[in-house]
Every structure is written in structure tokens, then in C-alpha cells.
């Protein structure tokens, strides 16, 4: 593919708000995970929660969209000068030439979870203040972001579980390449809700401790919440080119099982291979791999196998989910932005909470942060339904 300039990005999650804060936390191997205290949830697990979302409201003109997911979207859009950069892009192009491609897995379903507790005892009806379209519906996030930023280009939400916000880079690249858009706002948001906390618990995939990716004693994931956004533009000198670029993207399906990865990591390998092909690069051209690394027994084993088969034990890799938790639909954009921070600040993130790498895993896994020049990064995101996506990012020349 033709590389795209990443001219601005913003990030917020349990590590804090803004690129600088998140970069420092990741570099220092700090973790934002804490015992679960969300809503009325009584589960013995750790979560990565963004503080204060209960107390804010979305912009009054978009009040109908008010829900935890869109509040966190608004927080993210206001960070790192993101909304301002989009406003400048809007004057450079036209509002109708900027697309909005968002990813989320659960959108504002928390609103419906709470509304189901308040059903009319006689009729079973939902409370009159409940708004389905602006909160629960999966498209709500892109609808909100598009209106918030005053954009009029094409928009949709990709919802392919935990690969969602990596895949949106592909949607944007295709529509920019086809000339439908000149620029695109990509990324997305997932927020804590009962569906995912109790759902992952039912599958026995959550750990009682903070998750420990690639650790010999890893026993499951920790769920987090977060938002991340990136502004993509053509590399053509008309725009203030960012320091980093999207170089390639690869997508695949496992065709194996709805909630268990292919044991040989077959789909994951296809995604990584296709991403490298799309970037015109060989495995040796990649300096660091940000793994999906959820810290479940099966994900880490399958991913390790696929990485080892492609990269051997040469390429340093790590998962940053011990720091952020698993941000589900927002994992892709979060880890893509962490990869951009690694490129801009010359470090390879270590792995918070991982104590001893599982000797059965053969990739070159980093527990400690390594200070090193990082020019190109591969970022992996895999989801339920066997949905895989790998993205290659690089420093602008």
C-alpha cells in the first residue's frame, strides 16, 4: 500500500490521559490495573479503569449521545490537540472529504444493561429516558465522533471484537486510495460494562491478579477501557507530515473457533505476512513487535508460535496489556499509538507484571524496557470469531 502520514494522535486509558503520560508510564513499566470496583460488579479480578467518567457529560448539543463510551470518546478527542488538528484538516480539505472510521466492541451497551434493571414491572418496557440509537447501537460512536468534529465524509463502525480499531486503518487506507476521502479520523473506544466483565468471566478467561502476558504462570486477562484516535492523510507535502506513517496492514480469519485462537496461530501468521507484504517489507525490517499478548494460556501460546515461525527469536517483542489491561475493541488503536510512541521516543516497551517468561514460548520477549532506535513496528490485534489484524508502522523519512 501507499504509506499514509499519521499527522496527529491522542490516547487515554488507565495509565493516564495524553500521549506523554502514556509514553512515560509504558516506558517505566507502570501498570494502571487495580482490583475491580466498577459499578455493582462483584468479580475477583483486576480492571484498567479511567477515573472520573461518571462525573463528566458529553457536549450539550450532543447530549442525547451521553454514555460512558461517548464520554471517553470526548475525553480522547480533546487530548493531545486532536480536535484542533482535525479542525485544521477540515479547513485544508473539506468536511465531506474526511472520513470517520471507528472501532468498538460494546459501544454504549452499559446504558442498556442499566435500563434493563429499570424495566416497567407491569409492561416490561424500558424507561422513557433510554436512548438506543445514540448509545447502544454499535454505530453510535462514529456518529458521535463525526458530529463532534463537524465532519461530513463517509463513516461507519468496524466491530470485529478485539481487532476492531486496528482494522479501521485498512478501511481508511482503502477509501483514501480510492479517492473517496483525502483524510480520515480512525481509532475508537471501548469502556467497562457488565457484558464483557461477566462474559469473559463465564469463559474463565479473566485472571484474579493483574494479567501477566507471556509469563509461565499467566492465567488470564484483565479488562480495561480506553480511547485512541489518529488522523491519517496522504504523504504529499500538502499537510504538516507527522513523524510516523502507516506502512502496511494485513487481515485474516482463523476459520477455527469462535473464542479460541487457532492453536498453530495460522490466522495470526497470515495477518502478519499480509501486513509485511502490504508494506513491502521482510521480517528482518521490523525492529519491534507489539503483541496482542492477552495473557490467556491459549492466545500467548498461539501468538508466540506464529511470531516465532515468521521472525524466529530475533525480533524483540512484548505485550503492553500488563500496563493497560485488555482494551478489547480499543486494544488495536491503543497499541498502535504505543508503537508510534516507541518510534518517536526510541524505546521498546517492557512488560508490566510479567515476572518470568514461559520457557515454552520461544519468541524474543522483553520483560524490561529497552532503550533503542525503533524505526519500524508491527502491532498485532486478534479477536473473537478468529478475526486477526496486523499493522506496520514506521518513522517518516
Amino acid at each position, binding site marked *: *500500500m501507499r504509506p499514509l502520514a499519521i499527522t496527529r494522535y491522542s490516547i487515554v486509558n488507565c495509565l493516564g490521559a495524553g500521549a506523554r503520560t502514556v509514553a512515560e508510564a509504558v516506558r517505566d513499566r507502570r501498570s494502571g490495573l487495580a482490583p475491580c470496583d466498577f459499578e455493582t460488579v462483584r468479580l475477583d479480578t483486576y480492571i484498567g479503569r479511567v477515573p472520573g467518567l461518571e462525573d463528566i457529560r458529553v457536549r450539550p448539543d450532543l447530549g442525547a449521545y451521553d454514555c460512558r463510551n461517548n464520554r471517553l470518546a470526548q475525553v480522547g478527542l480533546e487530548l493531545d490537540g486532536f480536535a484542533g488538528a482535525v479542525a485544521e484538516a477540515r479547513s485544508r480539505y473539506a468536511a465531506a472529504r474526511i472520513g470517520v472510521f471507528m472501532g468498538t466492541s460494546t459501544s454504549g451497551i452499559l446504558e442498556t444493561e442499566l435500563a434493563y434493571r429499570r424495566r416497567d414491572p407491569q409492561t416490561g418496557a424500558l424507561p422513557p429516558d433510554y436512548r438506543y440509537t445514540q448509545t447502544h*447501537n454499535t454505530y453510535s460512536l462514529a456518529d458521535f465522533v463525526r458530529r463532534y468534529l463537524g465532519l461530513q465524509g463517509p463513516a461507519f463502525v468496524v466491530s470485529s471484537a478485539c481487532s476492531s480499531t486496528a482494522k479501521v486503518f485498512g478501511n481508511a487506507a482503502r477509501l483514501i486510495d480510492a479517492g473517496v476521502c483525502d483524510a480520515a479520523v480512525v481509532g475508537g473506544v471501548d469502556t467497562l460494562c457488565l*457484558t464483557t466483565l461477566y462474559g469473559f468471566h463465564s469463559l474463565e478467561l479473566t485472571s484474579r491478579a493483574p494479567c501477566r502476558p507471556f509469563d509461565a504462570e499467566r492465567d488470564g486477562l484483565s479488562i480495561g477501557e480506553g480511547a485512541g484516535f489518529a488522523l491519517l492523510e496522504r504523504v504529499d507535502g500538502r499537510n504538516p507530515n507527522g513523524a510516523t506513517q502507516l506502512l502496511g496492514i494485513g487481515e485474516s480469519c482463523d476459520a477455527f473457533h469462535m473464542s479460541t485462537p487457532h492453536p498453530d496461530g495460522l490466522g495470526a501468521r497470515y495477518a502478519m505476512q499480509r501486513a509485511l507484504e502490504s508494506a513491502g517489507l521482510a521480517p528482518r525490517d521490523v525492529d519491534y513487535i507489539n503483541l496482542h499478548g492477552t495473557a490467556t494460556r491459549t492466545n500467548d501460546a498461539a501468538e508466540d508460535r506464529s511470531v516465532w515461525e515468521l521472525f524466529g527469536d530475533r525480533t524483540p517483542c512484548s505485550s503492553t496489556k500488563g500496563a493497560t489491561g485488555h482494551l478489547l475493541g480499543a486494544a488495536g488503536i491503543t497499541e498502535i499509538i504505543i508503537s508510534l510512541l516507541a518510534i518517536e521516543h526510541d524505546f521498546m516497551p517492557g512488560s508490566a507484571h510479567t515476572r518470568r517468561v514461559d520457557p515454552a514460548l520461544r519468541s524474543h520477549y522483553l520483560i524490561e524496557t529497552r532503550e533503542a532506535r525503533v524505526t519500524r513496528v508491527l502491532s498485532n490485534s486478534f479477536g473473537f470469531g478468529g478475526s486477526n489484524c496486523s499493522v506496520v508502522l514506521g518513522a517518516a523519512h
Partner: protein
Amino acid sequence: MLAYVEGVGLAGPGLRGWLASRSILAGQEPYSFAPTFVAASDLLPAAERRRAGTPVKLALAAGHEAHVQAGRDAAATATVFASSSGDCDNVHHMLEALATPERQVSPTRFHNSVHNAAAGYWSIATQCRAPSTSLCCHDASFAAGLLEAVSQVLSAGAPVVLIAYDHPYPEPLNTVRPIPGDFGVAILLAPGRTERAATVVDVAFVPQEIEASRAADPGLEKLRAGVPAARSLPLLAAFARGTRETVILEYVAGTHLQVAVSPCS
């Protein structure tokens, strides 16, 4: 953006398959409403077949028919799935369980609750490892899927099947989001003219208010207006008529897709 239509699949109220529905859509035969018939798919392994809900069956039936028309192996076709709300029954049951003090959630219900469940089942059924996207755009989910599918055909130079489907919510969500019927549609798009290509489409994004195409038959128009995936009906009618025409599909917030349709022969 140009693409060639090699196959269509359809399962909707009173529309039992593309071949059986063509003359109805072309206005040569009257339309009459009947509940959507969705056969249990024998594409899936037994365990998955038990777990798959109606939306998955709709998607599989439509996608399969489109591949039969096109004479292509589904294992090699990239996929775009578009739905307004995924598996609505499943979501409702999860929400009910979460509103009880016990909060006992079934693991199968949880993994079926992802918006890309149909894509997951499809890939297992067809052993397809090609790229796959699952989209939502509320009422405009079909239009969003079409835009994405055509851009994929263009960028990959390979066939892509668009599969759009919608299924009603049970109460109480049905009251706040009524979807009056099951509807599944699949359109298999190829980058070049082949023997199987019957129609060529040229899709453009139009960022302004223009009047959307409607279905001529009042019953079909009711479907189009009510079920997001059925917003494909004017396009399917143009395919069925086999004439050169322009179809306007509503997209998001006052924008539209303009689809120039022309027969290949």
C-alpha cells in the same frame, strides 16, 4: 469505484432466494409478504450449527447462494459483513441475565454477542482465511458495507462478498428499535468482467441530500423503509430488471451513495 456483480443471494419476507425473487423484484410478478424462510445451514459443523442464531443462518444462506450463482469457492472470497444490530435475540438474553442478581451469563451467548459472530461462523463453515470486516452503520449499514466492499475489490483486485443481514429484537428493545422482519442479502463483487458477471456497478459517495430510490411495490417499500439490510432492495430491483439505471441509497446524515448499474451483456 467499479465492480462486477457475479452473484446475488437473498432471504427475506416473501423473498425466498435470489432466483425465485428476481421476477418479483423486476415487477413482473406480484409481491406478497410471508415470513422469511431460513433453512438450517449444512455448511456448519454440528456443534456450531447448534450454537448459531437466526442472523448467522440468514448470513450463511445469502452468502452461500451468491457463491453458487458466481460459481466461486467461498474459501477464497474476502468478506464484508454489515448489520445494524447483530444477533438481537442473543443480546436480549444476555441483558436479561445481567439484570438478575445472579448475573449468570452463558459463555456461548457471550461469544455470540460479538458483532462479527456471523463472520466467525462463516469462516468456520467455508474454511475461508481471507480478510473479513464486520461493519455497523445503523440504518445505513448496507450502504456502508457496499462502500467498503467496492473499495476492497479495487484495492485487492480480488473478489469480495458483501453480506448484509438484520433480525428483529424481541421486546422490550423492539419497541425502541423496531426491525419488521428477517432479511439477508449477499452480493459477490469481482474486479473484472467474467462470464458470470451479469451487472457492473459504479459506486460514488455523494455528500449531499438527494432523493433516495424507493421500491415500486408498497409491500417491498415497507420492507425497505423498515429493515436496514432491505435498503438494498432498489439496487436488487435494478439488477433484476437488467436495465441501465442509477440507484440512490441513503447513507449517513444526509449523505448518499450513487450506484450506476448497467448490464454486462
